[in-house]
């Protein structure tokens, strides 16, 4: 089905614009048209479907699923629910407080907080559209594993005393979010697609344009020299570069895809993308309202370590 977009790009770039398919310029333009068309169509369709599923899992409900679940099951469920539950970083604090208040253990709450931004539908759509389903699946599974493991470690460390004191005093009200009708779910989903598109379209276009440039102009194997599997520092470097790029997750993936074509190994690529999506400076600032410094740094440290291990692991086995 995705061949449709290749045909469309053939038509526009070679037939309409009359570009030469063997020239660098023609190839780059073709790449750009194919990928932008594909990504926007996939985003619209998949984000819509995900939003319909999401409308059944408001966080107000999810916290009740998670309270009183056995430890390991709780972590796995929290990471899984993180994928389908709506999350924006401005809800991070009420979400965190609401989970603890419902008796969800601290570590389980972190499993959710880690998976929710990292394994999101926008990243998965871009991975699926640009890298194929295998890499999207690897990303989904390793992302969940990172969320579960990091959450379990944070739980083991018994860091409850590093949660801001006032958090424990807050009591949730019994206010129930009204159940949506079918029509409202469709409206909610359409709304959600519009919101996401409005926010990320410049990044997607910019990212794909940069990717198209790399694709056409950077020599094959260029990155092998600097960031190949033989450089042990490549993975931690990728993670350090990835953290500040948070807002541009949608713009980073197309570039990374082009870089992988030029010899960036899979593990380093995965580690970079996870660092971009999982750890963000603005989210840390927001979370500092509910977490004391020590817990924030522990959180950053554990997630970073887990992501670096994912990078080394995949560089080793692929």
């Amino acid at each position: 089905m995705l061949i449709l977009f290749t045909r469309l790009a053939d038509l526009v770039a070679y037939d309409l614009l009359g570009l030469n398919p063997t020239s660098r310029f023609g190839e780059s333009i073709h790449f750009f048209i194919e990928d932008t068309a594909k990504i926007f169509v996939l985003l619209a369709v998949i984000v819509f479907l995900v939003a319909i599923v999401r409308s059944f899992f408001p966080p107000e409900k999810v916290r009740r699923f998670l309270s009183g679940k056995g430890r390991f099951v709780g972590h796995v469920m929290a990471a899984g629910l993180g994928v389908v539950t709506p999350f924006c970083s401005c809800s991070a604090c009420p979400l965190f407080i609401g989970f603890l208040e419902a008796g969800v253990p601290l570590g389980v709450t972190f499993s959710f907080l880690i998976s929710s931004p990292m394994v999101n539908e926008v990243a998965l759509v871009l991975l699926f559209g640009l890298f194929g389903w295998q890499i999207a699946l690897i990303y989904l599974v390793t992302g969940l594993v990172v969320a579960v493991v990091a959450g379990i470690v944070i739980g083991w460390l018994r860091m409850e005393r590093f949660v801001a004191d006032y958090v424990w005093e807050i009591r949730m009200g019994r206010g129930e979010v009204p159940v949506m009708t079918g029509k409202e779910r469709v409206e909610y989903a359409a709304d959600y697609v519009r919101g996401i598109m409005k926010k990320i379209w410049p990044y997607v276009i910019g990212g794909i344009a940069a990717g198209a440039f790399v694709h056409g102009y950077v020599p094959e194997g260029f990155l092998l020299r600097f960031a190949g599997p033989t450089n042990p520092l490549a993975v931690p470097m990728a993670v350090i570069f990835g953290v500040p790029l948070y807002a541009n997750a949608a713009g980073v993936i197309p570039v990374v895809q082009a870089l992988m074509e030029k010899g960036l190994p899979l593990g380093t690529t995965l580690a970079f993308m996870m660092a971009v999506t999982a750890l963000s400076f603005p989210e840390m600032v927001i979370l500092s309202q509910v977490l004391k410094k020590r817990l924030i740094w522990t959180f950053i440290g554990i997630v970073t370590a887990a992501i670096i291990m994912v990078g080394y692991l995949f560089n080793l086995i692929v």
Partner: protein
Amino acid sequence: MKNIEILGPGCPRCKQLAENAEKAVAELGLNVHVEKVSDMKRILARGVISTPGIAVDGVLKGSGRVYTVEDIKAMLAA
């Protein structure tokens, strides 16, 4: 006399929802106060986790979404 609470820490979505609420009130010609609530204790006390939430006379009407002017009019009518 009714009052509307917009429950959220003050993110762009919360502001948009507050604007829509003001508009809905004005269009209906009601004398309703739209209050922006950013205190975590009060947000959670209404049962809201995904911000922004909206409550009319203390009753939660919705959360996690920027409701349109029409949506809010319906909430006020009910």
